[in-house]
Structures are given as C-alpha cells and as structure tokens.
C-alpha cells in the first residue's frame, strides 16, 4: 500500500477549499467573491455550510455547482444587507452642509449610490436632495449585485418597527422636514413615496467586474469596500476615480479610509472626519 502524501501547510485545507469554492461560484454563476476579505467570507461560508447542512466546504461547492437554488442562497448570504436611513447622521450632515453648496453650482447632477442594499441610503439622499432643492436637477444611479435588495430598494417599503430609528437619524442629519412627510403606513409597512424614486435608475452592477459610469458629481459607497481585499478595493477606487468629474465627491463608510490604498493620491480629504473625499484635479 502507498504511504499517505505529506501535507503541505502553507494553506490550510479549508483555505484551499474556500478558494476552489469561490472559483466555482465565479465560473458557474459569474459572481466574483474571489478577492473579498477572507476572514468574513470564511465566516459567512461557515454559516452557509451549516444552513445547507453539509459537512465541508468541498461538499458545499459540489452542492452549489449542481443546485442553482443553493447557489443563490449562498450569494445572498455573502452579500450582507445591513443598512439604515441616514446611517451615521454626521455623514449626511456633512453632505448637507459642506457638499451641497458645491453641488448647487452645477445645472445638472449625477449621483451614484454604489452598493445601495435595500435602498435606505438612496432614500436618505433623495430626501436630503429634495430638502435642499436639488432633486429636480439630479439623476440617481442605485446599484448593487444583490437582485432582491435592488427589488426592495425599488419598492421602498420598510418595516414600521424601523421608523423610529429612521426618524431620529433623519433629525440628527439636520433634516429640514418631517420624515413622516415621505411615507404612508399600511399593512405591509411604511411605503416611501414613489416620487422619491422617479429620478432613480436601479441597476445590477458589480464593483468587481463591471465598468465605469460617466461624469458623476457624487459617489457614495459606504460599507461595501470593507468586504473587499486591498487589491479589489483599489480596483473599485479606480472605478470611482474614473467615473467622477474633476472635483467630484466620494463618500465612504465611517471606518473606511483611503489611507491604505494605492489609489489614495487620486483624492484629497474634503471632510476628513466623515470620510468625504474630492477627486483631485487631473
């Protein structure tokens, strides 16, 4: 009988399995998580393994290659949907007080909410732009790779239990109106006024594999790149840099930063504490 092979330990078996699984997901379904930050991918794949009742990542890979339904569950698990209206009110206050005065100098505006989740951030911007008198000249692009999140965003319906927190955040962001002006409550929840979504283009767009948008004045991409590794973060930042007009604005999540990126030089701090940057003049 042959002796067992020696195990090489640069990578653990699990790490190898995960790489193969992500490769399979990409080849089969074109969802590319290969360069996502490994630690949280691993955590979520462990959850997927448990939920689908399989013992190993290899078995999970087998399952999702042959069962598109299971694959779609895994993709949903891998694209985390945690968001809020006016999440980090200080960010929206800074947009209102520092960025809006610049935006007012343009006759027409394009704003891209990248990784818009179920639309909380988009609706926050739409309300803020209406309050600031910018709505009529603005076209919003709201993108995500999670189709059910995009569908939810286009519906604009949220559980009534979340309204209290939404209202408080809106107030803290310097809101000039009452949030209740924008929704009606019914059996299904709070339905936000569809006029808020009249000037919005929803689209399935991946920061990993898809192309640039043109001539954006403001891009808000919050808590999306924390799920990327550095290489992928650099790609996304390149995309943003190429999509923005000169002096256009980029807003990130409150714990994200350009400090550790190769593309840092494309941008200058605009409101440092709120992670709002401005595209450098070419």
């Amino acid at each position, binding site marked *: 009988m042959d002796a067992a092979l020696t195990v090489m*330990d*640069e*990578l*653990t078996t699990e*790490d190898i399995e995960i790489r193969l699984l992500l490769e399979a997901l990409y080849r089969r379904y074109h969802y590319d998580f290969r360069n996502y*930050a*490994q*630690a*949280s991918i*691993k*955590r*979520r794949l462990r959850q997927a393994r448990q939920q689908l009742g399989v013992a190993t990542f290899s078995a999970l890979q087998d399952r999702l290659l042959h069962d598109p339904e299971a694959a779609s569950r895994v993709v949903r698990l891998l694209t*985390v949907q*945690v968001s809020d209206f006016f999440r*980090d*009110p*200080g960010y929206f206050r800074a947009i209102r007080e520092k960025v809006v005065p610049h935006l007012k100098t343009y006759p027409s505006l394009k704003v891209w909410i990248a990784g818009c989740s179920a639309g909380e951030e988009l609706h926050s911007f739409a309300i803020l732009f209406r309050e600031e008198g910018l709505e009529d000249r603005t076209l919003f692009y709201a993108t995500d790779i999670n189709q059910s999140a995009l569908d939810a965003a286009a519906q604009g319906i949220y559980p009534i239990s979340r309204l209290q927190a939404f209202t408080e955040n809106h107030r803290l962001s310097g809101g000039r109106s009452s949030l209740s002006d924008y929704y009606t409550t019914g059996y299904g929840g709070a339905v936000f006024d569809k006029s808020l979504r009249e000037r919005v283009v929803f689209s399935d767009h991946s920061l990993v594999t898809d192309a640039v948008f043109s001539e954006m004045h403001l891009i808000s991409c919050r*808590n999306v*790149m*924390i*799920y990327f*590794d*550095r290489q992928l*973060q650099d790609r996304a930042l390149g995309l943003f840099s190429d999509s923005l007009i000169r002096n256009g604005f980029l807003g990130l*999540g409150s*714990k*994200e*930063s350009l*400090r*550790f*990126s190769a593309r840092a030089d494309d941008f200058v701090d605009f409101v440092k504490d709120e992670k709002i940057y401005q595209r450098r003049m070419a």
Partner: protein
Amino acid sequence: MIVSGGAVAIGASAGAIQMLLRILPALPKTYPLPVFVVVHVPPGRRSELATLFAGKCRIAVQEAEDKQPVIAGTITFAPPDYHMLIETDRTLSLSTDDPVFFSRPSIDVLFESAADAYGAAMTGVILTGANEDGANGLRAIGLCGGRTIVQNPATAYARAMPEAALARWPSACVLGPDQIVESLIAAVDS
C-alpha cells in the same frame, strides 16, 4: 501557516472598563505584541475607549480602521457597531455583518478570525461579562493550539461570560486580574 510573533486578543463586556484599567496600563512600554480588544459598547458615533486608554497606557492605543496593517506593541479597539477581524495577511478588516449574541463588535468574530490568522501564536483572554459571546472564539483559539485565559469568575463583575467560556473550553487557564497581567508579560519574556 503559523507565523512567529503572536498576538493577544481580549474580550470583555459588563464590567469591562474597570478590568481593562487594571490590565492594559500594566503592559510595559516595550510590550512587543499587538493587542486586539473587543468591548461590548452600545452603538454610538464615536467610542471613547481609545481616548480613555491612550491617556493611561504605556503603549500606543487606537481604534481600528478597515484594512489597516496590524501594528506590534499597539492596543487596537474594535469600533462601536462594527465587527473587527484579523486577516491572514495581518491586516484588520471590519464588517457590519449581523450581531453575534446581540453584540457588534463580537468577541467570537474577532477570536475566530485571529485563530485562523495566528494559530498557535495567538493568546485569547475572556474577561468579565454578562453573556456568552467569546466562548466559541476562545475554543477556536484553543483548538489551534493557542493560549487561552479566562478571568476567574469569582473575581469578575459579571461571571456569565467567563463561565460560558470555561464551559465551552475547560482547559483554559483560570486567572485573577493580576495573574492575567503577569501571564501576558511572562509569555513574551520567555
């Protein structure tokens, strides 16, 4: 996979500040390891933890930012409302994944990722607290051959968390506050 130069991860909940005030300021100026800390705090705009401890510690203190390289001899607090994870390339990453045991940041999330990144070179410490977060994480560190320390529940402000950790990983060292400090320092002297 296991790389030299380990790291310390500490998790604490109810009663955390007082315990950490006994441990962290006692680390010497030359302490060579990175120290990651998760304290359960209500989500707020900015945590005061890093500021509070910076004034009292002899080594550097900071709050984590996403993709930051791990720094030796520095205490890094997880920011409120984000999980903090350690990547195998020794950078920090943050996530807004669901809370674990109602907690974000969660001790389990930090410890499990740290076990993957540092293996046997990892030391995990569970202090006072009133829930079960950290028990699975401590076990993960133990299973990788890392050092596991649990505050003696008798000395803890809230004993549920150290007790849960011991139930899940009974071979952890059970130490009082001063012994924890000694043990963290002794481990790097030898």
